[in-house]
């Protein structure tokens, strides 16, 4: 009950991954290349981490194009971290919620456009899909040993978990007293919250995870009851907490811990509840993109992100505050460690991914789309 569920790379998963490798994806690498890449170079040290990228070449390329699901400040924050360490590489980014971001990159690639170097998603489902389609570059970083298998793609080298975004419940302390506040997920279904509760839009990876996880826990009826509350849906956690802080909403059903920390530090009257049944969390996955315009810079970024210094940046930047899954990661700025939370991950990521159309249909329907 108490421990973190291990991400499942079951025998089935391994077999599937194997077939993925053998498939000729509609873009990019044929099977033999997959094996050839990532094995030849010996790692070099740059700053304080190891990389298989050709650092000089990366600096020559001089650019990195990053697609990210984070809000503006968060994405800019990530780029700022990389740029500080590698000022010769100009960064530029596109940010959109995971669903939109993924649509965009697929549309571009299907039209023969390959403008992206690295992509960060907040949902494993599109990551699997992208891997299947051969969208990721196969690149095994020398930083890989610092991660558990659960937090890496199968096989290694396509994407990794750059952080975890845990979420619980958050409420406005002026509007709701501590006594009335919800203690567990089920308390969300109180009719008193009707029209006063917020959640995220269907393009959000975290929202998908929450839907899946709580459905598994409490059955189909949970979300149908939730729909009766007529929740307000938003794109980003900042919007959710902005409204919470101002009192436009009394509580939010999907309060992300990083956002809570940020707003609390600004003096907002918000409080966080970590439901005993478990917090939902989505992995935030980063991977280099196949046929990138700046391949060495892409690899360098992956190594940087995986490294201790990159992870420290992700953990401490106020716009990010991710929980790191690196085995040697320090606690989060608040002193809390990721393992202190009980996190509800899907047990079977593939089954989870397959539920996506059902989620979209139900969630959109709930919102009136």
């Amino acid at each position, binding site marked *: 009950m108490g421990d973190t569920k291990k991400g499942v790379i079951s025998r089935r998963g391994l077999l599937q991954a194997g077939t993925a490798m053998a498939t000729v994806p509609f873009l990019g690498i044929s099977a033999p290349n997959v094996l050839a890449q990532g094995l030849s170079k010996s790692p070099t040290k740059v700053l304080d981490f190891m990389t298989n990228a050709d650092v000089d070449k990366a600096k020559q390329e001089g650019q990195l194009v990053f697609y990210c699901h984070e809000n*503006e400040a968060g994405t800019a924050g990530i*780029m700022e971290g990389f740029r500080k360490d590698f000022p010769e590489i100009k960064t530029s980014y596109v940010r959109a919620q995971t669903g939109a971001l993924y*649509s965009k990159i697929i549309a571009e690639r299907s039209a023969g456009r390959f403008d992206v170097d690295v992509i960060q998603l907040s949902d494993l489902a599109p990551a699997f899909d992208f891997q299947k389609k051969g969208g990721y570059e196969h690149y095994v970083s020398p930083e890989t040993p610092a991660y558990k298998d659960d937090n890496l793609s199968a096989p290694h080298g396509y994407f990794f978990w750059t952080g975890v975004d845990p979420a619980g419940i958050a409420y406005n302390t002026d509007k709701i007293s501590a006594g009335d506040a919800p203690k567990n997920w089920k308390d969300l279904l109180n009719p008193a919250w009707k029209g006063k509760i917020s959640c995220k839009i269907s393009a959000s990876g975290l929202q998908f995870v929450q839907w899946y996880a709580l459905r598994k826990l409490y059955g189909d009826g949970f979300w149908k009851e939730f729909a009766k509350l007529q929740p307000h849906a938003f*794109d980003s956690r900042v919007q959710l907490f902005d409204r919470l802080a101002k009192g436009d909403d009394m509580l939010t059903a999907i309060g992300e811990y990083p956002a809570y920390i940020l707003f609390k530090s600004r*003096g907002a009257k918000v409080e966080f509840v970590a439901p005993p049944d478990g917090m939902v969390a989505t992995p935030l996955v980063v991977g280099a993109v196949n046929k990138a315009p700046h391949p060495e810079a892409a690899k360098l970024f992956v190594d940087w992100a995986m490294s201790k210094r990159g992870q420290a940046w992700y953990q401490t930047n106020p716009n990010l505050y991710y929980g790191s899954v690196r085995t040697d990661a320090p606690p989060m700025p608040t002193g809390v460690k990721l393992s202190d939370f009980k996190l509800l991950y899907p047990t079977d990521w593939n089954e989870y991914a397959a539920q996506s159309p059902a989620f979209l249909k139900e969630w959109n329907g709930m919102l*009136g789309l």
Partner: protein
Amino acid sequence: MTAAAANAGPVSAQKLAGYGVAAIAAVLVLYPVFYLFQAAFDVGDPQVRPPTAYGLDNFGNLLHYPQILLNTLTVSFAATVMAVVIGFLMAWILARTNVPGRRVFEQLMTVPYYLTPLLGALAWSMLGSPESGFINQVWRATGASGHIIDINTPYGIAWVMALFEGSVAFVMIAAVMKSMDPSLEEASQIIGASRLRTMLRVTLPLVIPGVLGAAIFVFAEMLGSFAVALVLGSPNRYYVITTAIYQLIQQYPPRIQVSAAMGVSLFAVMFVMLFIYRRIVTGGSYATITGKAFRPRVADVKGLRWVLFGVCVLYVLASVALPVLTLMFASVQKIATAFPAADNFTLSNFHAAMSMNAASSALGNSLILGFATASIGIVLMGLLAWLIYRSRLPGAGLIEYIVMFPQAVPRLVFAFGMMWAWLVFPIPIYGTMWLLLIAYLTVFLPLGVRTIAGVMLQIDKSLEECAQMCGASWGFRTRTVTMPLLLPGLIAAWLLLFIASVRELGASILLMGPHSKVITPAIVESWFGTASELTATLALIQTLVVAAAMVVLVLVTRRLTAEPVD
């Protein structure tokens, strides 16, 4: 033989310019529309391009979204009614009564348009949110409970739409009032009819066709409105077609086909409305009517003057002063509230806005794009205006239709088609500033051509014909007679295009790429992803830029419309 040779030379220069520019316009407009229609009729696997099967299923699927269609109609209708009532009232007050300060108010009436509906929506969101809205906070401070206005309702949305997108109703109705021959009313009064009776029996019937035309035009515009519904409607789960399309294509997998079907349906309705409008008002042509402008009789309303003055002030307050002040107020607070504590004030939002890479580069991009769009635009649209309204080349009528086409398509929907169209284009302009430039030039065709045509038509044909009779070739007389006379109008058109491209949202939000961010979508992004105080700051900065351009515009056009001697 010499006579025949004389036929060939100069005419072909004209024809070349004319048909060349017509071809460019046709490609710009029709190429994306083709892709839009293709997507709407695509019933095959959405991931496979080109489409495998065509059919009407997507339109059938629209019936699963009755609420969205209803919402769109409700909001558009309500907004149109409000806009026309306000427009009529203000037009009456400013054109027919002796309220003091009329000229100033007339100028102020167009300001809300330049402030952009996005800014209006953001400001009114801060003013009228049921919980955190300033007006409601003030209301509660008086001891009452609950809220006095809720801006997130359909009527709230319609209200903001009417305020910021409806000022065109005022312009059109005022024009109708100014073109009315006052002697018609005088005849009625000489016969002995009272002022009220005159207004009901003479004035109103004369004005109604014009008002009706304005209503239809405004309704068509409201159907395609995006920014207000996005900011005020989406939080409350209230979707209209444009915001629904925006959400539907943001997911994975994106609901391209049904979105395209929605877009095409919206386009069809707008097209029909604009067609009706054309028939009613202009008898078939978009050319600005250049008839004599009468000076309508100004009624002395005595004591009512100050009441009406108050009405005008109220309007300016609601549409200009209050929103701008609200944003300014919010931008200097950490967490915006109506009654901030002393420690709530900060300038950090401005720091953040300036240092935010996205914001500063977006602003820079917008300025560059504004210059480029305006400069290329006046050449392209000037040639098109000449081609359609002045040359006698065959096919001019068809070109006019094509040029006015984008008016009938909501920006977002058009951008949707452009996204696909230019994605597959062999030259890689997708995701670059070039794409935005092309998009702007396309969607601003109606605006630019109409403005320049209006100026062009005011130039009496005989001025150019006389140059011809003096022996000047087309090039010579265009350079020495037409262009200098057009110049003030061209400057005005340049400024209009500049402002329009800086404030553009619907197309930009879909077509931006990593290196081509622009300011108005950046404000929306900010609203999504940062605190509203920072968003307010960005919005203010954008407003400053537009305001500066507007001031220049006012100064230039004031010189333009000065009465000529004799």
